[in-house]
């Protein structure tokens, strides 16, 4: 297997999902190459090597500064054709989904998406894909090469192997149509506290909170637990909480150790974003809320009573563990 992993980066850091896929590829194959496309990205090569790349291709060009997919399709297609990679892997994001799909068209290649596992079976690469709202798991494969795959967010943990890699600059030649779309503005919200994708504990609020002011209850509990605050699509759309905290199908996929869902009914669109959490606790006044089907502990009751009390108990525990003075 000769595998290329497309590595996404943001603000000078390779993304965790990209590194996780890189580690998985290194575990499956012999030599794993990585492609880093951007402007001023030379410094990222060493990090890629530490997480499993034995060769790093750098496409470093001001034309690649904005995170837009089409110039990246051009760069990746050239590289894949030149080196004949048989497998090309992506950690799925808004950007990489468009890069992978564009590449599938350009290279006339098969693309499997939303994979949660990759294995070699009798020399054949097999992907596992949840389908129909995760009610079935489908084993999928490819009939031709290169095999393209998008891996679901949060699937593979990065593994630091501490290696070194040869680094090669690649020529950046772009198609005329690839540069027509331009980034005119980027607004990146800085959220307070740990980002929800990295957080060990998440307290999430939904429409059941009743209003944006009640997110204070969620924030206090999260603070007591040393965790991050998340929100459902419904409340983000309603403007109660910023998008950066959105969990679910159109938001982030999170896999914390503990996920506390407050006032969240738990429709499938939300479930797909958080079902990988180790322990799920749900508080909701509706006994028929779907979230009770998959919460490890469900409490049917009034969140306005339960949440402040819970915060108080957790704070008391913290004080007992870390006495002041």
């Amino acid at each position, binding site marked *: 297997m000769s595998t290329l992993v497309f590595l996404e980066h943001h603000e000078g850091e390779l993304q965790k999902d990209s590194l996780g896929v890189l580690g998985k590829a290194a575990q499956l194959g012999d030599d794993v190459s990585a492609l880093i496309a951007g402007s001023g990205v030379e410094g990222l090569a060493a990090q890629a090597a530490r997480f499993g790349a034995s060769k790093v291709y750098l496409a470093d060009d001001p034309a690649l500064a904005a995170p837009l997919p*089409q110039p990246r399709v051009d760069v990746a297609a050239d590289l894949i054709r030149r080196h004949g990679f048989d497998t090309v892997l992506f950690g799925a*994001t808004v950007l990489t989904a468009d890069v992978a799909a564009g590449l599938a*068209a350009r290279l006339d290649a098969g693309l499997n*998406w939303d994979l949660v596992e990759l294995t070699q079976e009798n020399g054949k690469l097999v992907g596992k894909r949840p389908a129909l709202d995760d009610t079935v798991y489908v084993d999928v494969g490819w009939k031709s090469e290169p095999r393209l795959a998008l891996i679901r967010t949060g699937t593979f943990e990065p593994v630091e192997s501490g290696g070194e890699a040869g680094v090669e600059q690649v020529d950046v030649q772009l198609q005329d149509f*690839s540069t027509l779309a331009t980034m005119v*503005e980027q607004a990146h919200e800085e959220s307070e506290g740990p980002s929800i994708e990295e957080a060990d504990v998440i307290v999430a609020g939904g429409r059941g909170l009743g209003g944006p002011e009640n997110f204070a209850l969620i924030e206090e509990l999260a603070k007591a637990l040393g965790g991050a605050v998340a929100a459902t*699509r419904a409340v983000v759309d309603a403007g109660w909480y910023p998008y950066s905290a959105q969990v679910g199908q159109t938001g982030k996929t999170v896999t914390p150790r*503990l996920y506390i869902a407050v006032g969240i009914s738990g429709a499938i669109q939300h479930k797909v974003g958080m079902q990988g959490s180790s322990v799920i606790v749900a508080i909701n006044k509706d006994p028929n809320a779907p979230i009770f089907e998959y919460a490890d502990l469900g409490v049917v009751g009034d969140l306005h009573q339960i949440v402040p009390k819970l915060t108080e108990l957790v704070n008391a525990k913290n004080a007992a563990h870390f006495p002041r003075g």
Partner: protein
Amino acid sequence: MDIPPIESGAGMKIAVCAKVVPEQARRIDPETKRLDRSGEQTLNPFDANAVEEALRLKGDDAGAEVVLVSLGPERSLDALRKALAMGADRVVLVADEAAAGADLILFGQQANDSDGAVMWAAVADRLRRPLISQVAELTVSDGTLRGKRQTEFGYDVIEAPLPVAVAVSDAINEPRYPSLKGIMGAKKKPQQTLSLSDLGVDADRAGEAGSRTEVYAIGEPPPRGETQRIDDDGTGAEKIVEFLLERKAL
């Protein structure tokens, strides 16, 4: 969300690439390992957002045209007629080549049967058009489309000249319900069916034969542990703490 007026989208030709999906009781046929499409069919709900946005852009401009482009068997027309009833002008059933002459090629954010969210980037590449995906707000002005979208990191604003391929998020609008008049009128609107050979596409390049991916097996999802549910009798918070300690989650 404020929707700014369109300054000059006049006479625009908009193609909406739509999928027809099973209406309910979605199941995979264990024999063929493919989705059972034998029951009632419907317009992919996410594509209704693309139709709605196309109709908004068209407004009352009689020179503009909204053309629905889809791929599927003849009976897909029944489901596609919903878009005509919403107000789209005509349907062309078969392939994306039919969208080649459009100023704007619109997509919904995903198919709700396969959860695929990949068509627009592939079509944009084949048609050599600029691409903007996940658009939650869009305007067209002086031949340039501007789209605002959500990513994992915040909001992007991206511009591209027409003709352009755009995938809209389902947060962009609330699709209208077809009126009774619309439903009646939909039957009379042009509905053109093209075969693969009409388009000069070899049969072995399409459908399952042309697919570059395959399904080996269908399995069960991994089991989750036991779930327990309690009614809060005033000790709910204490019970949560006990549970978390027991699970070493605190």
